[in-house]
């Protein structure tokens, strides 16, 4: 589902954010990308949802070589990828329901289809009762569960999570771990960038370690 071949990325032309990274993630697999701050974890994830282009090398996601992808097609690729961030990135002026409905509205789903999917997704993260709450009124753990519901509402083939538990207490982190694991069991390919050892220990999954932009163990 995801293949990287000798990928290099530099932002200033000198310092490599990623250097000669090659890795592969199969369909339905869950993989951790670990490493200290500045190791290149977030850059790697940004390459996968085409927010960045590699300086050199090939990135293939869902059978599509992103190097050759026309910019106009990037949005359609993103509809098959759910992304979760450390800072949740919810819209504070929209209700939980509206936040989760966003990816479905973007792709033009009808009202009833949106309702059905949003409630299903909120049920999975245990937040149906908060559907009409505003995000600032929720706890950090709840906000991250809303973000996960939004990422999964369109049944994406791939789920990318960038430090999803970094701003959560252990209980909420465990909840999030469970949700990510559930997504994998359903067949979603999951890539989690984290330096949270507890999170890695909680799940029996392959780990790719980065340091200074290079893969140090896989």
């Amino acid at each position, binding site marked *: 589902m995801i293949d990287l071949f000798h990928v290099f990325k530099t932002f200033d032309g000198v310092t490599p954010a990623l250097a000669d990274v090659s890795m592969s993630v199969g369909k339905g697999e869950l993989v951790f990308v670990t490493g200290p701050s500045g190791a290149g974890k977030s850059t790697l994830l940004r390459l996968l949802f085409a927010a960045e282009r590699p300086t050199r090398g090939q990135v293939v996601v*869902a059978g599509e070589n992103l190097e050759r992808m026309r910019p106009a097609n990037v*949005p*359609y*690729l993103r*509809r098959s990828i759910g992304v979760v961030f450390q800072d949740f990135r919810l819209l504070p002026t929209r209700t939980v329901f509206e936040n989760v409905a966003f*990816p479905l509205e973007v*792709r033009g789903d009808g009202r009833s289809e949106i309702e059905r999917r949003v409630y299903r997704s909120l049920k999975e993260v245990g937040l149906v009762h908060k559907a009409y709450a505003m995000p600032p009124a929720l706890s950090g753990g709840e906000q991250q569960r809303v973000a996960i519901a939004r990422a999964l509402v369109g049944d994406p*083939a791939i789920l990318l999570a960038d430090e999803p538990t970094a701003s959560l207490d252990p209980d909420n982190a465990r909840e999030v771990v469970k949700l990510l694991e559930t997504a994998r069991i359903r067949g979603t390919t999951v890539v989690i960038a984290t330096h949270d050892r507890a999170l890695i220990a909680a799940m029996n999954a392959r780990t790719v370690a980065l340091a200074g932009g290079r893969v140090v163990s896989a």
Partner: protein
Amino acid sequence: MSGVFQSPARGFHLVRAHVRTALSALTRTPVLSAVSILTMSATLTLLGAHQLLSLAMESTLADLGTEARLALVLKDAVTDAARLSLAREINALDEVARVDYVSREAARDNLKKTLGAQAAVLDTLPENPLPASLEITLQSGVRGVDTLRRIASKYRAHPAVDEVVTAESAVLRLEAETTLLRISGTAIGILLILATLLLVANTIRLTVYARRDEIAIMTLCGATDAYVRTPFIIEGAIHGVIGTALATSLLFGAHFALAAPLADLISRAVGLSITLPVPSFSFVLSLLVIALAVGVVGSAISVRRFLRT
């Protein structure tokens, strides 16, 4: 890629969602929307007032053009029958609105009126030196120097005509002034439209900026550039419609409140009688077209710049 790509177009739901987003933006960023609408209506009012004044000036100048009409000075020996037949012939021309016969006595009376206190000088003359003439008034649409020249050359050699008098230079000057007025009017109009475009583009840019997080999340969720852009363009069009409605109300209000006193003022100041026209349907429609174009183009420019950054 097949299998992972979602169907890209579900037109109806998308259009409804865009309109809903555009309308909700009016209430979500009310201050910015109000600034954009007021900017648009203020400049449209200025533009409209300027155009209406230009129209009034142009029509006044065109009326002045008829003052410099054409006169055929008749030979003394012309019989009444020949004069009548000539007058009828000229009256039948398409360009001519009317033909007035000014007899020698009438010409003398006119001159007396013009001379006023000095009129007595005419009584010292042994006989009336003024000839009879036919004064020709042209149709309002053809008051150009070319028509004057054409009619003059046609009748200069007529057996009943002694001389043709035209106020060609006066007409030429009026034409030049009208052209200048039209060019300056167009230039000011274009400048006003450009200024509005820049102001509206910048105001909408602020509303785009205020919603940058939303746009970032939209693109993350797979929104196309067109999807991001469309609500802003609809919003720009809505601003255009409301701006035109406000500007039209202001212009109508100003017309009923100010047209008469203004005309009176101009009449007393420069001695011109001027009629300020009521904004017509086509005038309002052209304001609307300009406002829609400004709103739509302004929004498109702002979002384009934002999407690029």
